[in-house]
């Protein structure tokens, strides 16, 4: 199972490492030689204009899409080509941009699915307690026995997040978790992520268009443009960088 860790991830602080990762769709290089590390325990924001390859990056990191070439290691283990369910069992969880949900189950059953099939699946009689903890943490306790069919967008996002947390991940990817939310809801979600980050020994990667909220949340922000890393740095430096402003607002000279 475990291959010897390549030189790039010998650093104990690196949780996931991408090295020259390429993903092609026909002639399009959706990811064109992406190289960066995700550090243990950090909150990493990923932003970039539409079509920059953000969702592709997330899909490649979670096993949904295989990378065309390059190396991806997680916890020192090569994961390129692994299906998403195996990635999950290594400790990589994710949420989806369009909320996914098991529509014939209750809220609790949705979350319990993550607990039952995630890391340490099935083993130990404390699954129920673990599910209750996660439901409580995400703030779903009052609704936990409800059917999910009439849950609103915010609740659906909470359920999806809780199910992902229930798999006991080490690394959690969030795909546009704030899209479709109003300002108050964004604030409550940002607070929720901060609470989760403080409470759990968990690394976050957040793909998000709402750059302000992303800057509040993240310790570092990665800007993706045309499938390549434009820059990766602290929010202050990224948001004041001329190249980033150009990418988002167009070249100033043209204005």
């Amino acid at each position, binding site marked *: 199972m475990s291959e010897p860790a390549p030189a790039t991830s010998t650093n104990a602080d690196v949780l996931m490492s991408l090295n020259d990762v390429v993903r092609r769709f026909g002639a399009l290089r959706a990811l064109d030689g992406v190289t960066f590390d995700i550090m243990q325990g950090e909150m990493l924001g990923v932003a970039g204009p539409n079509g920059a390859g953000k969702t592709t990056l997330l899909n490649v990191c979670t096993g949904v899409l295989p990378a065309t070439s390059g190396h991806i290691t997680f916890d020192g283990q090569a994961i390129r080509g692994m299906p998403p369910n195996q990635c999950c069992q290594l400790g990589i969880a994710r949420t989806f941009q369009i909320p996914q949900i*098991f529509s014939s*189950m209750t809220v609790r059953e949705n979350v319990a699915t993550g607990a039952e099939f995630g890391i340490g699946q*099935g083993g130990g009689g404390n699954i129920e307690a673990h599910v209750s903890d996660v439901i409580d943490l995400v703030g779903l306790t009052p609704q936990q026995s409800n059917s999910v069919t009439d849950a609103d967008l915010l609740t659906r996002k909470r359920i999806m997040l809780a199910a992902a947390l229930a798999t006991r991940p080490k690394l959690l990817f969030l795909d546009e978790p704030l899209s479709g939310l109003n300002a108050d809801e964004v604030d409550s979600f940002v607070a929720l992520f901060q609470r989760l980050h403080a409470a759990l020994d968990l690394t976050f990667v957040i793909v998000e268009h709402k750059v302000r909220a992303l800057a509040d949340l993240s310790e570092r922000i990665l800007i993706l443009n045309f499938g390549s890393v434009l820059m990766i740095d602290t929010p202050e430096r990224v948001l004041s960088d001329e190249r980033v402003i150009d990418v988002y607002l167009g070249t100033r000279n043209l204005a």
Partner: protein
Amino acid sequence: MKDQTAATANQMTRRQPSAFSSLTFWAIVGGLAVLGMFVDDPYMQHVLILCFLWAIVAAGWDLVLGYAGIYNYAQLVFFAAGAYGSGMLAAKLGVSPIVAIPLGGIFAGFMGLLIALPCLRLRGEYIALFTFAVHLAMPPLILKTKHWGTGGNTGLLGIPPIDLFGFTIGPRDKLAWFYLTLAVASVAIYIIYFIVLRRRMGKAFVALRDSEDFARSLGVSDFRYKLLAFMSSALITGLAGALYAHYTTVVTPKILGNEFFLLAMVMLAIGGIGRFPGAVLGAFIVTIANELLRSAGNMRLLLLGLAVVLTVLLLPSGIVSLRENFQRLWRKTRAKQ
């Protein structure tokens, strides 16, 4: 106030899975067993035996189509695989039917594996096209392999009756067949709905059906559980086919004909898929209706078709949803009082 609504919601969802407790199930099986002692008309016994066999097929199909959400239309291929497998082992190689019947089921399970593997690379409606093509390819295959002993168009004749501890259960021993098929059907249905679907495997099936991407992201292996759904469904359906072969002593390619296929579809449509006891109820209703309509001749299929149109229009989720509709109405009227 909040606690109260949570509590009632809790009761509602709790009631759903246990809507049909295993106690109720075995009570009904017991009732049917008692009924067997009073039915002495061989034709009536025959119809009930067919009901039990079809109930197994419908339940097996419901497992893969209704719960796992895989559009498999090759279910009768598994029935035929069990029937031909067991029939040929017993008629051509002299294997005792007691051994041949389980082997027929295992052969069908193996067919399930063969058909499932290409399906893992396909999605949704393409699985329906592929599996239906497999279904259509079977009768010519049986004709072409006549020299292997399939019997070709005339059918596989002379399938020996079951011989149990020196006790021979021939096709005319309807009462013995009644109890044998009742026992196998009730155990098969119990295993499907009360064991497999309520454990881990069943949760994985439903999760993959509801949202495959979400399920995979939570660690559910689509590969493993789709194979398991196909194989367990095929094995159980194959057992029904094997029993059918030894009951009728003849298997012809007709079991893969349009009529059988339509009947099985109608059972699921009328009964309702993915909710116990829909499919099983559908098997009983359609088998009995089909016999009652024998005198209608050519009109029979038309009338069955009409029944499907009416259920689809009036009760899109099948006859099982009647009960839920009544419950909802009942709660509403009680709430008003």
